[in-house]
């Protein structure tokens, strides 16, 4: 184990996979000479050269299509979106080309690509640069969608994503790049896609959250522990495929559920998880599933408004208290 930042963990994963497999290459805006807008690709150009660390012009649909074409004939591109907001320019390539190629070719052409970059609420970046983008992707059969919360997950999940034979949407976060944590140095350390993790054991309520919301939920859980409320925290890590087994297992133990998500709640991840829990564990529930979601508004710039947009620790605490007070906890 080594202590490193989330950013360094991603960088290490890229470096290890590029060393392991010559068909892996990195492509995107500012990934080479500039070493990444968020420095995730720092040092890669020097180590692997311009053939494998490919700077592109600003042409998201174009270079995503390039990655898809290269993947169809044997390469394993890692495509960086400078921020995931820009991936909307490549949405057709991702949804109509990458996700469906294997199916509509009857299993002849798979597309082993990773599309990675930061997404989700950032710091005063306003409406177009600070939003939860996973929603646009996890609806689509043929895609896998990963949201790594910790440096260890960042490394283990990115390596698994690169080795996966399918298109993987891997959304990081600007606000987590500097977070430090323990990361295994073993180049064969992998975290399988589609496996959730219980980050904190508890008995009274299951809180499901990922990325920045997991850190906030953790603070809420610690605060409530002082009051004697025992919170179990589940991090799905992969949103598609979703590990409902781990979630349902936790619900059967605690009988109460709060889902926290940063994005605007309508038709969001909270809705999906609440539906799964209701369908599969309705009889286990002692209270209705609560959702704590981002406000149903675009992301504002002003600091005070921005704080109102994204779920706070206080709102998470209040929701947990509400579900725990139902039916006389």
């Amino acid at each position, binding site marked *: 184990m080594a202590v490193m930042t989330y950013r360094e963990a991603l960088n290490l994963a890229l470096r290890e996979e590029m060393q392991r497999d010559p068909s892996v290459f990195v492509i995107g805006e500012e990934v080479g000479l500039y070493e990444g807008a968020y420095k995730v690709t720092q040092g890669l150009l020097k180590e692997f050269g311009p053939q494998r660390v490919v700077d592109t012009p600003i042409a998201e649909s*174009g270079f995503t*299509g390039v990655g*898809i*074409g290269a993947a169809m004939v044997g390469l394993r591109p890692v495509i960086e979106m400078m921020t995931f907001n820009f991936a909307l320019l490549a949405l057709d390539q991702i949804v109509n080309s990458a996700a469906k190629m294997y*199916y509509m*070719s009857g*299993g002849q052409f798979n597309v082993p690509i990773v599309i990675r970059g930061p997404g989700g609420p950032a710091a005063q970046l306003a409406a177009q640069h600070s939003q939860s983008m996973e929603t646009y992707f996890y609806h689509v059969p043929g895609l896998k969608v990963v949201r790594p919360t910790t440096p260890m997950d960042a490394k283990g999940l990115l390596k698994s994503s690169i080795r*996966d034979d399918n298109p993987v949407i891997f959304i990081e976060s600007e606000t987590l790049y500097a977070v430090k944590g323990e990361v295994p140095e073993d180049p064969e350390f992998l975290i399988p896609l589609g496996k959730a993790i219980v980050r904190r054991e508890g008995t009274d309520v299951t809180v499901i959250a990922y990325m920045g919301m997991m850190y906030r939920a953790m603070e809420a859980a610690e605060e409530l522990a002082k009051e004697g409320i025992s919170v179990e925290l589940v991090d799905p890590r992969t949103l598609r495929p979703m590990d409902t087994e781990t979630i349902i297992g936790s619900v059967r133990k605690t009988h109460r559920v709060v889902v926290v998500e940063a994005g605007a709640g309508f038709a969001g991840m909270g809705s999906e998880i609440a539906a799964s829990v209701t369908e599969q564990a309705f009889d286990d529930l002692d209270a209705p599933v609560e959702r704590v979601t981002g406000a149903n508004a675009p992301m504002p710039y002003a600091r005070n408004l921005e704080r109102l947009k994204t779920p706070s620790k206080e709102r998470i605490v209040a929701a947990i208290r509400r579900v725990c007070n139902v039916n006389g906890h």
Partner: protein
Amino acid sequence: MAKTLTQSGNSIGLGVDAAVARQLLGDMFLIRRFEEKAAEAYALGKIGGFLHLYIGEEAVAVGTTSMLRPDDYAISAYREHGHCLAKGSDPKRVMAELFGRRDGLSKGKGGSMHLFDKTTNFLGGHAIVGAHLPIAAGVGFAIKYQGGDQVIVCYFGDGAVPEGEFHEAMNLAALWKLPVIFLCENNRYAMGTSTERALAQTEIWKFAETYGVPGERVDGMDVLAIRDVVGRAVARARKEKMPSLIEADTYRFRGHSMRDPAGAVYRTKEEVEREKLRDPIVLFREKVVSAGVLSEADVRAVEKDVNDRIDEAVAYADASPEPPGEWLFTDIYKES
């Protein structure tokens, strides 16, 4: 660098021997016959959805493919039956795909617009206009990355030219020197919108100059002229990794799809009849016979052989079972 319309020479010295002439004529006729039979099957309800016929444009796919090696790649849009057949796919499996049957190239999951054949390096069958152009650039990127000397031909219509992806792909292929031949089949109408109503620059080959690559316009009804132009582009791509833009001046004799059977709303009957005088198969047939490269009997033998093959293809597609229900959920994710 750019050149104007290329046409082949007169009948004296066609530059092809009997074997090549037979292959070119046979392949064009095979596509024509395949499409006619597909139209019949559509009328009978055996083919559903959208069906875009290539009738009138056969010389482009056949002339182009005849200049490729089997390990070269081709990729196309949704009017791709001809490109797929020219690249060497078995008409039986193509027809079965149109019929939505389990023995189709894509197991019946793709249909008319999504033909793929890994055995011939035919990379689809893409039905969002413009989307496959960057993918073609990616294949070119991979060829270069892997140190290969193959090329990829990317067929698209005039309707893709106003899309941003045409320009993104042209720019990237030119910037990175990728072995891609962008082959625009200008049949003058994007569905019902003429090039005059869609493009500020209707001479599509001229966009090559913008991106600093060779561009040529060719008579898309003249299979020998296409061989000439494509042959040069392939050589440049193979040896120098230089992309090219070719505009083939062609015409579809049928409507946009079977739902626009006559294509009569946006073009005149006179125009269609006039263009039919440029029928690439009729012209080439006359040319090879009058030049003495093939005899009338040779030509009839080719036609007979093709008719038999297409009849077999229809029978094969008819006999192929529907895909089993559980295939709904296969080929979504590849298991590592």
